[in-house]
């Protein structure tokens, strides 16, 4: 498969890009932020997403979805990134779907159609601290009655306070098990915090939460593989969104270089800025290719996908970070103002960088996967 969008994918982009740009440009984020929105995203916009079939893109057709791949989801995520659109698409339509589709069974039958129809928002309750360490899960699930009792604390769960269901990773006797914990389960409390990019992430406390045996996603003790699928999909999706953030910041900055005059010249005439902009262009192109490669390998079910996913998250993280830093610097004083959008890109990039493992985490993973 060539590493560029085929005709169908190009058509998808041609319909999604103007849709997101018109319905949810940066001003949409500002409106939510300035009205102290308590949901974290617009339900009206989510309804529009649903009309286009986007929440169910990755949902298998048998469960009412479109049965598309990560390459297609990446097209949507890049536009979400470029427009800084607050959306539960990544956690619900990508991460949760990847886990449920991998696991199959009761929970897949229950939640996948609900996701595809836009009825269900799903949160991913994996991390338990300020840093992403999915191999250090302390939340426990102990057998109780007909099912399990969950105890523990999950940190920075995006959409955790509004999600209809949360996928909770917990330790069981023989490994990791994933649970579908519904919103109204007794003993669950979510404490939402506003983050730097205006998104809402919750500290979720699980205090003796009782769930039925069929709340298990997949098999007991066999959640590791499902968690891996969830993480690979979500990391790749976050990387695609970062490519959008970086590209948006870069485009805005290059345009600014062509408009702003100092010393009687357009500042884009100065070689000191030209070379930095050109370097950034190269980094962004490489990041884009890397993310596409990770998407392609995931869609093919290739063994090499895991390595490339970490490479993509790290590379997209580096490139987008460079784009927003150069963006603010090259804009000068105006780049520091709240009124101008470039600062919002910097904030969004920082939040995405941390999400599901930062650059350093994934660089370390690459070393481990290469045996050192």
């Amino acid at each position: 498969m060539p590493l560029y969008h085929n005709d169908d994918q190009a058509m998808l982009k041609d319909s999604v890009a103007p849709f997101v740009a018109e319905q949810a440009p940066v001003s949409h984020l500002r409106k939510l932020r300035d009205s102290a929105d308590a949901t974290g995203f617009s339900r009206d916009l989510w309804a529009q997403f649903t009309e286009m079939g986007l929440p169910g893109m990755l949902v298998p057709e048998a469960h009412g979805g479109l049965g598309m791949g990560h390459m297609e989801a990446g097209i949507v995520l890049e536009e979400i990134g470029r427009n800084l659109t607050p959306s539960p698409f990544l956690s619900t339509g990508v991460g949760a779907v990847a886990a449920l589709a991998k696991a199959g069974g009761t929970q897949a039958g229950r939640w996948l159609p609900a996701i595809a129809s836009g009825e269900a928002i799903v949160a991913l309750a994996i991390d338990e601290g300020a840093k992403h360490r999915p191999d250090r899960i302390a939340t426990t699930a102990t057998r109780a009655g007909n099912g399990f009792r969950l105890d523990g604390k999950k940190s920075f769960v995006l959409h955790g306070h509004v999600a209809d269901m949360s996928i909770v990773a917990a330790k069981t006797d023989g490994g990791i098990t994933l649970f579908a914990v519904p919103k109204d389960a007794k003993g669950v409390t979510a404490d939402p915090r506003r983050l730097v990019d205006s998104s809402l992430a919750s500290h979720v406390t699980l205090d003796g939460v009782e769930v039925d045996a069929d709340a298990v996603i997949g098999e007991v003790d066999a959640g590791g593989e499902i968690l891996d699928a969830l993480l690979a999909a979500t990391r790749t999706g976050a990387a695609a969104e970062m490519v959008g953030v970086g590209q948006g910041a870069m485009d805005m900055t290059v345009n600014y270089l062509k408009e702003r005059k100092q010393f009687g010249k357009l500042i884009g005439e100065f070689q000191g800025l030209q070379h930095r902009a050109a370097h950034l262009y190269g980094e962004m192109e490489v990041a884009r290719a890397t993310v596409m490669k990770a998407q392609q390998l995931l869609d093919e079910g290739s063994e090499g996908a895991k390595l490339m996913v970490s490479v993509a998250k790290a590379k997209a993280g580096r490139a987008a970070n460079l784009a927003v830093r150069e963006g603010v610097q090259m804009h000068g004083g105006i780049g520091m103002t709240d009124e101008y959008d470039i600062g919002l890109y910097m904030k969004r990039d920082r939040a995405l960088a941390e999400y599901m493992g930062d650059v350093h985490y994934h660089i370390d993973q690459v070393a481990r996967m290469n045996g050192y």
Partner: protein
Amino acid sequence: MSELDAFRTEVREWLEANCPAEMRVPVRDEGDVCWGGRNWVFKNDAQKQWLEACVSKGYTVPDWPKPYGGAGLTPEQTKVLKQEMKRIHARSPLDSFGIWMLGPALLQFGTEEQKVQYLNPIARGEIRWCQGYSEPGSGSDLVSLQTFGDDKGDHWIVNGSKIWTSYADKADWIFCLVRTDKANKYQGITFMLFDMASKGVTTKPILLISGNSPFCETFFDDVEVPKTQFIGEINRGWDVAKYLLGHEREMISGGGAGGDMVSIGGAFAKSFGKNAAGELDDPILRAEMAAFDVDVFAYRAMGERFMDMWKTGRAHPASSNMMKYVGTELNKRRHELVMSGGGSEALEWDSEETKGGARARGWLRTKANSIEGGTSEVMLNVIAKRILDLPGA
């Protein structure tokens, strides 16, 4: 089975039968590379056998048309051949500037007669070419070149000098940029071809910081060049030169720019030792190597995407400049890490155990990567101007 799969099977069988075992180990140093030419001495029988087998199949230049010595393969078939060769670690049967540079220029700008005349000996490894571009006063500002060809009716008399002519001392012919109109900067250059054995041509190898001399100074003292020996049009050689520079960057981008595109960290696990956690026993170097590996794997994906897009006309025409810039900077970084990883042993200059100081010399050689074929700074200028459309660039 698709046609391409059938081709793959055929190639696999052919390689199995025709690629000698000695040619299935990676090239260790410059001496293992087969350059061909009038004075070529094969390193061993296997090298000769492998070249002859490939020549008979057209596999030295698989994507060139058959009448010119190629195999007439489609881009997809060429990719399959390369994959299958890579699979058994088969060496390139023939490397040459004729294949990489002059050939593409001839295919694009040459007359039918010129294609038949010049391409076949290139494909067979009979004539080794060198490239006469840079001059002492014309490096990055190549178009200011002053080597002059005086029009004498049916021939030119060429005077001047070139520099950084790779292997000029070993080459049979040169393709050379010569000014034929002093009044017209861009439209006053002719792309000439002539025999290095012509009277008045002398070469002088330049000793580099690596201790090697792959480059030469080349002097022309009243060299007579028949007025049939040029490509394109007289005074329009800059068009050919520009095309070739683009092609060179594309070629570098398609494979060579990033150097050896494999993980670097794993290679040093042996010499360093590992800690109890199985990590390389120098946390800071490990981190730098891992960060480098991320960039290597990322660039590998970029190379794949670039070639896929380039071959189908989807790539920005100037994007090879970006590939060259990113890839060569990456390769320089690799060799800095190779030196750090190797420690004092990598400093050895001539011992047998270090293959004559291969690491130190290789490290120094890579410093030219971002100078030759257009400096990194020129690449960035081109990206700024042609891709980002920045003003005044």
